[in-house]
């Protein structure tokens, strides 16, 4: 048992964890016929149930999953997996119908919706059941109150509400102004922009994957991987001092993390050129600044010419540049994560003199 727990503890390392999540996304998209099979569906369900049921026997894991704050996240894992599987299943089945020339199943169904009694009745039942769930929940799970707040003692770990834990995870890689202001702002702006930049009518009112491959994959990457799985990571795997802990590991406050990260400027000036850091910070950070400029200003036109040329043609210049900008911003997180993990890169641009770091 300890061996199995050990494996999970190792897998749960943020690097492996992120890698495995991406891998499962790739599998899900690439081998979607296999993924949507009931065998895989039940398999995942049984695996998750067993994992939480048996894992719950471990005192450390039990402490984490039964914390009233964390119980919704356990529910979230089941629901997220189910709905991802279900929608992919509907999409693939539709794709098969479309391939055969039958059109999506939704088109075959009548347009009529029975308001009375079907809709109203089911709504009423849903209302009642939701009330039952909320009442029982409020009885069984006590409000997670703590001792009076003390400015001299910060709770350790200090965790954001569960729905912001993905954002908090970004703080490991970016400065607060980016992770807490710019990137969340862009998420909201991007979500608002979607209806205006996506004028493709396909997939409207029916499930499909083949017709919207890129869009769905991008969405899954952004929502399931970058948002939801980072919430799960932040809830279950981040302990005191925001250190990483395996699910079956004791949250020891004394655990240390070696701080050996370096900035890009050091890579360039010290390691590559073998000199010291220039005293002028603009000169010192020039490589990083150039790199960032290239990323946001040079890369999009290049992509318009090559790589994403079909999209450029389809969307037109304004829509294309907005889309590519949002896409690049989204990708900046995994890029920064990879750079950190592979090269111990702390900041691409680091100007502590004016509190500006990227």
């Amino acid at each position, binding site marked *: 048992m300890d061996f199995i727990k050990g494996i999970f503890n190792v897998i749960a390392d943020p690097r492996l964890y992120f890698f495995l999540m991406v891998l499962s996304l790739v599998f899900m998209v690439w081998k979607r016929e296999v993924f949507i099979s009931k065998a895989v569906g039940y398999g995942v369900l049984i695996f998750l149930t067993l994992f939480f049921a048996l894992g719950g026997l471990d005192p450390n894991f039990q402490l984490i999953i039964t914390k009233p704050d964390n119980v919704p996240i356990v529910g979230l894992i089941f629901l997220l997996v189910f709905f991802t599987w279900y929608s992919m299943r509907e999409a693939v089945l539709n794709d098969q119908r479309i391939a055969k020339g039958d059109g999506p199943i939704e088109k075959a169904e009548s347009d009529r*919706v029975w308001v009375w009694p*079907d809709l109203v009745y089911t709504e009423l039942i849903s209302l009642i059941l939701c009330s039952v769930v909320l009442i029982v929940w409020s009885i069984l799970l006590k409000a997670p109150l703590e001792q009076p*707040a003390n400015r001299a003692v910060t709770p350790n770990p200090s965790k954001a509400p569960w729905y912001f834990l993905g954002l908090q995870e970004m703080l490991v890689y970016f400065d607060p102004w980016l992770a807490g202001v710019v990137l969340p702002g862009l998420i909201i702006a991007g979500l608002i922009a979607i209806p205006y930049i996506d004028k493709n009518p396909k997939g409207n009112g029916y499930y499909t994957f083949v017709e919207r491959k890129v869009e769905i994959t991008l969405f899954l990457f952004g929502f399931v991987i970058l948002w939801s799985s980072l919430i799960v990571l932040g809830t279950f795997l981040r302990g005191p001092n925001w250190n990483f802990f395996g699910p079956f590991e004791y949250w020891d406050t004394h655990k240390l993390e070696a701080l050996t990260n370096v900035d890009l400027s050091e890579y360039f000036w010290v390691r590559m050129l073998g000199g010291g850091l220039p005293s002028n910070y603009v000169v010192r950070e020039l490589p990083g600044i150039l790199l960032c400029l290239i990323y946001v200003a040079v890369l999009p036109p290049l992509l318009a010419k090559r790589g994403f040329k079909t999209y450029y043609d389809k969307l037109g210049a304004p829509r294309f540049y907005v889309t590519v900008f949002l896409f690049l911003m989204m990708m900046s997180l995994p890029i920064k994560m990879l750079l950190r993990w592979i090269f111990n890169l702390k900041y691409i641009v680091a100007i502590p003199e004016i509190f500006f770091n990227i």
Partner: protein
Amino acid sequence: MAEKKAVGHAYNIDFLNVVFAASSIFLFVSTIWMVWDDFDREWKNTQRRFTQLELEVTNAQLAQTQKSPERAKLPALQQQLAAAEKAMEANRQRIDEINGQLSDVDARLYRVNKSAQFAKATYDVNRYAFEAARTANPEGVGERQKEIEAEAQRLNELNLEVQKVEAERAALQAELGKFTSEVGRLQKELTQINFEQTRLQRVVANIEPSLVKDYFRNAPLLDFMAPTLTVRQVVTPNVVDDVNFARVAKMDRCTTCHLAIDRRGYEKYPQPFRTHPNLQAYVGSDSPHPLATTGCTVCHQGLGGSTGFNDASHYPSNPKQREEWEEKYHWHEPHMWDYPMLPTNMTEASCQQCHRQEVYVPQAPRLNVAYATYERAGCYACHKTKGFENLRKPGPILTKISGKLTQDWVKNWVRDPYAIKNVTWMPKVWYNSNTNSPADHPRNEAEINAAVAYLFANSETYTPAVASPPRGNPKAGEQIVRSIGCLGCHIVDENDRAAAGPRRTFGQPLKSVGSKTTYTWLYNWVRDPKHYNPATYMPDLRLTDAQVADVATYLTTLTGSAGTAAPVTPTQAQVDAVLLDYLRNLMPLAEAQGRLAKMDTTAKQLDLGQRVIARYGCFSCHDIKGFETTQPIGVDLSEEGSKLVTRLDFAFVDIPHSKLEWFHQKLKDPRSFDQGRVLEPLEKLRMPDFRFNAVENERLQTAIMSFQREVQPASALPPRTAMRDFTVNGRALVRRQNCVGCHEIEGDGGDYKTLVADASLAPPLLTPEGAKVQPDWLYAFLQGPITIRPWLDVRMPTFGLDDRRWNGIINYFQATGRSTEQFRTYDHQQLTQMAAPGRELFELLQCQKCHVLGAIRPDQDRASLAPDLRMAHERLKPEWVLDWLRNPSRIQPGTRMPQFWPTPPYPKSSFPQLGGDADTQIRAIRDYLYTFRGGPSPRRGAGAAQSTN
């Protein structure tokens, strides 16, 4: 299903009906569950159980009232009542007539009263309107003025009418009274006898189970109106909780369950229904800490606002209770509140919340012994602590060490003091749990050798006053040591430091002292301690040189173990390595090596010695040359009791994460938090091991828990007055000089009592001292004590304190004696007015049977001697002598002085003299006493020892 869908349904409606029915049932059940969950509270059951208990207790009390001796009068009274009623019957016709008239008059009175009241109300309104109108327009109110006057007139008439009817009624009642007064008187008497019974019956009726109360007023959802089960709380505006961002009045709901805490009669019931064990001091409404203004949690700590057992942060007093609670209440280490309840045996730690920095708090024996232990162990020397500043260094001076000890002995001593003297307060610095492995031995020895070498190299030369003293008789010396009072501060036979207590171990335990130092040193020390150490607390016992020789010879016979020998001898390379460790912590390695290379062996050892002493803080307790101004090394403990558990490092020690557990572990094995860690030698913990046993450990935990952040506002503290300052400072002073080792003061101390056959042979009680003696005499006496009680073996030493401290002590005695005017002039003419009749009484009462007048007479029994009365006129306060004669045992319980004027017949006397008036007789005796002259006086020869016994 398919059929139904075909006629236009997306779902099977029959199935939906079933789902709807089932989910409605779920909702119904969960709603009931929710209401029940909200209704079902731990404290309600507790209150229900208490109601039963209260019923039992009240019924028992009710049964008790039946047995009251008063009730014997009942039958006779009832008979009288029956007779009186019969007599009243004879006039029944007239009585009925008057009653009829009375009811008419009452009705009339009611009517006129009402009219008068209404007239007054209308008049008030109109008068105000008139006043306002007249102020606005003085001219145009002629008409209204008339109206107002008429109205006032009418009101007067009505009032007169009321008075008339009232008089009529009074006349009727007086007439009725003629017939009924006897019955009324008897009925009143009966009610009085039955008063307690009636009261208790009413209580029972109130708490008895009833349908309305139990099933209606306390029913779920209805219990918001007027429930009998309610949360009870005490809000204390002057006593606050610190919630970090604000201080808020405490709201203690403890009495929701501890319902009988302030009621007598529940002493023997289990918690939570037990009466507070000390209602006189706490909780009781006439106590200095009443429940309504003090609350509970300022002393007990815990979360007062909570009504759940665990949420209130109860804390078990011992492991057994912990187990019981875990089983009964699912108790767990509280984490919702930073200041969980103190275990009951440590509650006194909270006295400091308001009695700040008082070393002695009356009626807090555990806290007082905790502080005494804290001081005696010298904790304050390394750990700065508020209230313990500027005290002497607790250990002996080491600036003249070479004149007293040998290097070998000192090495063995510091290696393991307990091997030589198991009761010493000297802690073990080396060979502790983190420096005990064989690999540590060379380093330990190198450090010990170096530190000792430093001490001896920096020692002044000590020239004894008597270079080669004569030997004495050890038997006689032992006799002196055991009788003269040495044992007030020194222990000889005891093997348990905690049992001997901090007062008896105030001075070095004398065990093994013979193998420690030389005869010459001991002789000189006993002869004049201040010669070796001018600042020593050791007083001068005024021994003759022959007695000194006897005592010193006896002390040399107190030999013991030579201690533990060094397990290894460090090589020079090892010594160098140790010194290099110290140096490279301060400077770059190359520089350190360079400095090391320049030193010869001696220089290396002395340099290392200095650094070792600095690292372990030896100088905190001992005077060491070169460390006169060095700051102590320990953590400041002034607010340690408020420290949050998150601030304590439990490292790899497997104990529950609570403050008390941490303190316990730290005191038990100060180095244990190094356990399992990889550390450089100089990174290791360095608090030495004092071998505190469980009792001392708990005392020190109590002391530490009392060191709290100052949270309570000034309004919660005892008011400051000069008297109080004298008292508080004096209490500290008599403890810091260990006066309480021999004398009992304010009910504390006087340990010497246990060493003498009879309490009368112990040093005198000093509580009444301030009321008793004249301050100028006391000042002279303290500076140069004289023999007051020649029959005592134990004697008052000459302390040689400075005036500041003598004044502090005298002020303290005056304050405890409630004696505000210190220095007074007495008119001796007036004081000795009645000396002649006094003399007669003096002889009649045979005062001289015990009291000495000059020489002890052959017919006086030595076992019951009393002080020489010739001292009275300059020693005693005249008004105190009166108090004393009137009732000696009230001033000094257990005294052998008889009470000649017992309470009955006082103020009459059983002696016929002076008109048989007790107070006059007492005064006469006092006056006679003040005629005596020629007794011993401390004032003659100013300060020099007068006579010794």
